[in-house]
């Protein structure tokens, strides 16, 4: 089975329900979209992520936050890509919202007001990547000890740790 090439053109994807809903809601918040390996990703502007989640939830297009995580693409800038995996139990479909973040200003609005489930996930990303989630009611380290220095999952953090 050969891989189908990824569709990265927003024009071709604008008919998909989630993309269409986001475009009619606020076209300037949608920075791009990608359909690769049967999975849809939509790039969202940093300042609109909470509203985008809220809008999709209120429109009934998604209802469940499956996962929230991040990947570090150091030394590229913007180095962080926060990924929100949203699920619609009704349509049986997933969508991934992505937000790019600069290393020097790694802060983003929390979505705990939309899904309380984000609480632990955001704490984990904060702990391991050092991304601040503004509005998270309990933004503390969760997996590492409280007095730990550095954020282990950043690419410039050595695998063996600092000795």
């Amino acid at each position, binding site marked *: 089975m050969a891989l189908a090439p990824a569709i990265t053109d927003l024009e071709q994807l604008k008919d998909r329900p989630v993309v269409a809903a986001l475009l009619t809601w606020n076209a300037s918040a949608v920075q791009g979209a990608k359909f690769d390996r049967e999975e849809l990703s939509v790039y969202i502007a940093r300042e609109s992520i909470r509203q985008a989640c809220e809008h999709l939830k209120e429109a009934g297009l998604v209802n469940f936050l*499956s996962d929230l995580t991040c990947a570090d693409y150091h030394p590229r800038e913007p180095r962080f890509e926060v990924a929100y995996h949203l699920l619609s139990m009704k349509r049986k479909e997933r969508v991934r919202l992505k937000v790019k973040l600069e290393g020097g200003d790694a802060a983003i609005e929390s979505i705990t007001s939309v899904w309380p489930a984000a609480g632990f996930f955001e704490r984990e990303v904060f702990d391991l990547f050092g991304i601040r989630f503004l509005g998270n009611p309990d933004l503390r380290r969760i997996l590492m000890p409280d007095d730990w220095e550095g954020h*282990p999952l950043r690419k410039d953090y050595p695998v063996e740790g600092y000795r």
Partner: protein
Amino acid sequence: MAQATVTPVVDSQEPQEKTMILNMGPQHPSTHGVLRLLLEVDGEHIVRMMPDIGFLHTGIEKTCEAKFYQQVVPLTDRIDYLCPMTNNLCYVLAVEKLLGLEIPPRAVWMRVLLNELQRISSHLVWLGTHAMDIGAMSVFLYCFREREDLLRIYETVSGQRMMTSYFRIGGLAMDPPLGFFEKVKKFLDSFVEKIDEYENLLTGNFIFIDRLKGVAKLSAEDAIALGVTGPALRASGVDWDLRRDMPYCGYENFKFKVPVSQEGDVWARYVCRVEELRQSREIAKQALDGMPSGAFKADAPKVVLPDREKMKTQMEALIYHFKIVTEGFTVPEGEVYQAIESPRGEMGYYIVSDGTAKPQRVHMRSPSYANLQALSTMCEGKLIADVVAAIGSIDIVLGEIDR
């Protein structure tokens, strides 16, 4: 001394401090691992609960980034040690999706068969420990008797009782040995009686019912908002099972029912899981009866290790083997999120590939991690004595929470 003259300052405007902080764990036997709960209590009632996790954090996600794709498989065993093959499956499915690799039917059915056996053995540990927490000691011994049979089956097929690493990218590690299917059949045939036996001990037991009914309720809305999945979600009345609703790994070929309860309490979770034991047995039976013959791994020489025999006789196979072992195999750039229904709920692997032989990022969405968040909602305002029942009912595995 001067201290004697100090009078305590009491602000009459403020209510008197009534609550105290109680520390439960990390060495508490009912926390199923090393979970620490900070309980703010007012008498016997919990005002606030703050789970404190991370005691088992070993940085598996970071380690994955330093390994070849095929070397990550043994790491995934160690996340959820009660169902290692479920973790293997989720990871290999994600990588196979990245590669666009097609798996032969025999491997697919073997995966389903073993996954359902894993679900049974994981639920048996849950049932035994949960009942023991409540005070029914003997159920534990019954459950571990059957679990032992299952561990022997895993040993037969993979050589290991627990850290099996049996699923590989592209198929299985090896064809199941002679006598394996007979062993599984013998187990499945006798297992219905065993479930009846557990139910005889528990389902009609007044003490057990009294400890579970109406305890640690969770509404469907709360469960969805808090990211709860698996039997805990279905016990709250949400009819959602990834095996049926978003089939993966050939689950669309199997017939089974998804047990759902409406009450959302500990009892409902018990009922759902016990019914899942029966349904898993059904699926395993179907997988066993319809087991196709043929290859057990994909024909992809650049990804899958060649047979031992070929390696000794064919130069090409030897070269591929050498290449895979020393340099790994490259995976086309991209990202995938693969979710499967583990015994505890939605287990998801988010893998980002940058086109090299090592993953750029491996993230495990572990069901227990999200389910644990709901524990506070379940327990706040309730009695301390019910915390133990609530922890048992969400069936957490700390290895998968802390990773």
